[in-house]
């Protein structure tokens, strides 16, 4: 009788343990990726480092850190240097392909006001798809040649699409797919990894030293750094895409740039965009 009662208690305890184990969320290993916690820590770091800068103002890069530069930029915005690219992009976007279809057929909401959702994770392909990549895939699907990722046409198209999303907060999703989490984690790893003969990581400039000068440039904070893309850079005397920005950063630290839209750059863009979720799109932008 006693043995029977003991057996019954053990069974009840076991049942309770199983119930608790299945009802609670799975325990997270100490170094398992936690994008939401990362994004919070990322934002908190910059807010604490620059208490006078309003959160949404981080998307204005160096202008949020330097009053003189800000005044010059505000004056320049009366006749912004990206205006020609914006106009060209609008026209390109509206011009049908040879088969009669257009960019609008490739995107949700006809491609208007969707920039804040890119990059997105394509669960079919198992990879990150950036806006630049989606635009070229749209072209190829409609029998057109892809544009260079680092030249004016792509910059113009993305400038127009960014413009239609101005003010909309970045809304990057990481679906419940281990490959998406891995892509995010790989992007993070790339961001913090030192490379090139100068032994710099992206974080060396844009986390450790925003607001500081490196030669003649004032470094932008990493928080919100992609919200203003594409940008007109006076240094380039022209427009630059995210691909151009990444490849140029790599060569400036004496690293051989990877191919534009390589998996590494796509993942990097995914990570950097995700940690800026909630901050408004401000592109196209202008930088010195």
């Amino acid at each position, binding site marked *: 009788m006693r043995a029977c009662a003991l057996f019954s208690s053990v069974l009840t305890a076991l049942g309770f343990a199983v119930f608790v184990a299945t009802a609670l969320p799975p325990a997270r290993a100490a170094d398992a990726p936690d994008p939401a916690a990362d994004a919070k820590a990322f934002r908190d770091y910059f807010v604490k480092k620059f208490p006078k800068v309003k959160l949404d103002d981080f998307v204005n890069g160096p202008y949020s850190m330097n009053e003189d530069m800000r005044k010059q930029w505000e004056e320049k915005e009366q006749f912004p240097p990206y205006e020609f690219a914006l106009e060209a992009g609008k026209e390109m976007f509206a011009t049908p392909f040879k088969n009669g279809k257009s960019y609008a057929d490739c995107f949700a909401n006809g491609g208007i006001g969707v920039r804040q959702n890119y990059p997105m994770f394509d669960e079919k392909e198992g990879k990150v798809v950036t806006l630049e990549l989606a635009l070229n895939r749209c072209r190829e699907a409609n029998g057109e040649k892809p544009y260079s990722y680092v030249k004016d046409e792509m910059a113009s198209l993305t400038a127009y699409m960014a413009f239609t999303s101005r003010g909309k907060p970045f809304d990057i999703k990481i679906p419940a797919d281990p490959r998406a989490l891995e892509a995010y984690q790989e992007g993070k790893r790339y961001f913090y990894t*030192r490379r090139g*003969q100068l032994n710099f*990581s992206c974080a060396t400039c844009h986390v450790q030293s925003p607001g500081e000068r490196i030669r003649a440039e004032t470094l932008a904070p990493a928080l919100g750094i992609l919200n203003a893309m594409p940008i007109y850079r006076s240094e380039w005397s022209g427009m630059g895409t995210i691909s151009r920005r990444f490849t140029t950063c790599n060569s400036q630290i004496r*690293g051989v740039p990877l191919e534009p839209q390589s998996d590494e750059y796509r993942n990097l863009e995914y990570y950097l965009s995700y940690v800026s979720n909630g901050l408004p799109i401000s592109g196209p932008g202008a930088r010195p």
Partner: protein
Amino acid sequence: MSRTIGAIALAAVLLPATLIPARAASDADFKTAYAAADAAEKQAGALRNQWTTTEAALAAARKAAEAGDFDQAVAQAREADALAKASIFQATSEKEAWKALEIK
């Protein structure tokens, strides 16, 4: 006396060595040095971490060899080899070291 003779004998042995110029590098020396550098750079490429300076040194080595300046070609190839090996070391050590920079 014997010390003086010893010093003279030592000088007699060492002096010619300083007067005879080192052997000029050959095409074969260049090819050996270049192959080693090129292999190291390919390894850096597999790690997705090549340096522009390595590429520049390799190009300079080829250019010097084409011009018949094998001393310079070997020197540039050795420079490229050292740079490529440094980039491999960087990529390898950064596999874990990047975590130290992460905002937490």
